[in-house]
């Protein structure tokens, strides 16, 4: 862990992509591209934003886009929260890690996978921490696709109504659902920032692969408003042939694709 923490974020993120790529050779259920689009965001949340008390995290992270959980798993592994054996037995009958987070697994704060659930749970957690008078912050990562769920907008309204300034939401705006580009199939989805602003959120739009910008904007204080960082990202970021190619939402690379991907990551 110490060696990982001391790495610059760019190198850490390269390491997470490499670990995810390696795991892809063991199982077919991976969601590699949606994990790659949020690597810098999740890395920043765990390594820069979440408060820790000795070895335990005090703040909470909810991976509402559950299909991106591979990046969460490899990071939790780097902190020792998940063991090497846990990672090695990913999606295996003797393992505890599946393709979507399961509450009760060490480090996992909510069972997600069905989209439009994690944000509501995050709102509840932030509300509870306010009621308790604690300083705990709730970080939640949602996909742009899951913002199509009506339940997401119920959650956004309540967070603003309750003035949950201890809730920081990141939108992984990679512009892809499982089927097609959001901007082509659902153009009314945009502009997204105006929707958040009109719902009473402190809204920022940033480059979701720029670790410095994520940290800088996420650290800004906001008063009496929940905060959202709309992070422009590239689905499959880091491997050229996976970038913005819908098929990589689901599939794992074959051996020759794996070798080609390794070369790109090493350069």
């Amino acid at each position: 862990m110490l060696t990982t923490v001391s790495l610059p974020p760019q190198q850490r993120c390269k390491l997470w992509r490499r670990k995810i790529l390696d795991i892809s050779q063991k199982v077919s259920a991976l969601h590699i591209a949606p994990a790659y689009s949020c690597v810098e965001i999740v890395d920043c949340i765990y390594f820069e934003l979440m408060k820790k008390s000795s070895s335990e995290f005090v703040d909470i992270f909810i991976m509402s886009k559950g299909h991106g959980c591979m990046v969460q798993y490899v990071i939790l592994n780097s902190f020792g929260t998940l063991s090497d054996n846990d990672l090695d037995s990913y999606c295996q009958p003797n393992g505890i890690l599946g393709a979507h987070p399961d509450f009760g697994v060490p480090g996992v704060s909510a069972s997600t996978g069905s989209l439009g659930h994690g944000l509501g749970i995050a709102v509840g957690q932030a509300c509870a921490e306010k009621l308790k008078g604690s300083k705990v912050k709730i970080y939640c990562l949602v996909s742009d696709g899951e913002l199509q769920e009506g339940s997401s907008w119920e959650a956004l309204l309540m967070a603003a109504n309750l003035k949950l300034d201890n809730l920081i939401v990141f939108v992984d705006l990679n512009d892809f659902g499982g089927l097609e580009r959001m901007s082509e199939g659902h153009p009314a989805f945009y502009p997204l920032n105006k929707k958040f602003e009109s719902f009473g959120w402190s809204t920022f739009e940033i480059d979701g692969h720029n670790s410095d910008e994520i940290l800088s904007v996420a650290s800004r204080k906001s008063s009496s408003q929940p905060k959202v960082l709309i992070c422009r990202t590239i689905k499959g970021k880091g491997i050229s042939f996976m970038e913005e190619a819908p098929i990589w939402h689901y599939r794992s690379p074959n051996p020759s694709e794996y070798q080609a991907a390794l070369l790109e990551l090493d350069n």
Partner: protein
Amino acid sequence: MRNRFAEVFFELAQSDDRLCLLVADISPAGSIEKFRKNYPARFINTGVAEQIMIGMSAGIAQRGLRPFAYTIATFALYRTYEFIRNDLAYQNLPVTVVGIGGGITYSTLGATHHAQEDIAVASTIPGLRIIAPSDPAETEAATRWCAVQQDGPVYLRLGKAGEPDLTSHLKTPWTFGKWRQVVAGSDLAIITYGTIASQCVKAVHMVQEHGLFPSLYFATTIEPMDFQTIDEIFSRYRNVLIVEEHVGFGGIGMRLKALGTQLSSGLHIYLISLPNSFSHSYGKHEELLFLNNLDANSIAQRIKKISS
């Protein structure tokens, strides 16, 4: 029932600051208004948005508080099915979902407001316990239990207002998971739960005047089923009548019939329930029950027929 729930919840909340109440734009009954006034932060109205009511309840429970999510039963359970399944049951969180208007108690509001298949729906979710009190006293006991239990979610099916007291005279206290014998008899056993229980009590009194003495049981806990009492009933009586303000499919009648067929051939299990169709009729609750042969007189006639 809802007024007793409100009174007890307010009383408990005064000494337990973990208790929160989430409602979805429903006007608070009785003492809930006092709770809202005294503890505004712990009263959360999500508006006409039941999914977030359940989702927030999950998050609140995960952080150590004890939420009750409260609205009309159809909206509490049907609109939110996946949220109860994934957020509450899959994560095994101690949240009480309170459904008001179980059965057809919202008798003038049409089928959109009839929780006539709620037991069937709730029964499909692993780990979701189901409690259906039959009167205010059982509502009070169940609410007290829900406020302190730690083992996962509960669907608490309540009626509306004005239900008569049927059980406070009983020596045996309400216990989670246990059915209660309310009337001791010998000719046959009647099993019921919820707001229709008062019709069954009336029916029992009617047939007693004709020399028939049925036993009457309240199946207040529906999930888990009280298999011990079921065994006792099945071994003691030749005829068992189940009365449900619920469609036949997926209610306790169907389950008990399935159990009964595995047992002695001398056992006869009868069921009176709502038809598996949408009502387009309106009127007082008792009038709608009458239209569906679920009023006290119809139940009494059925008891006589079975006994003849």
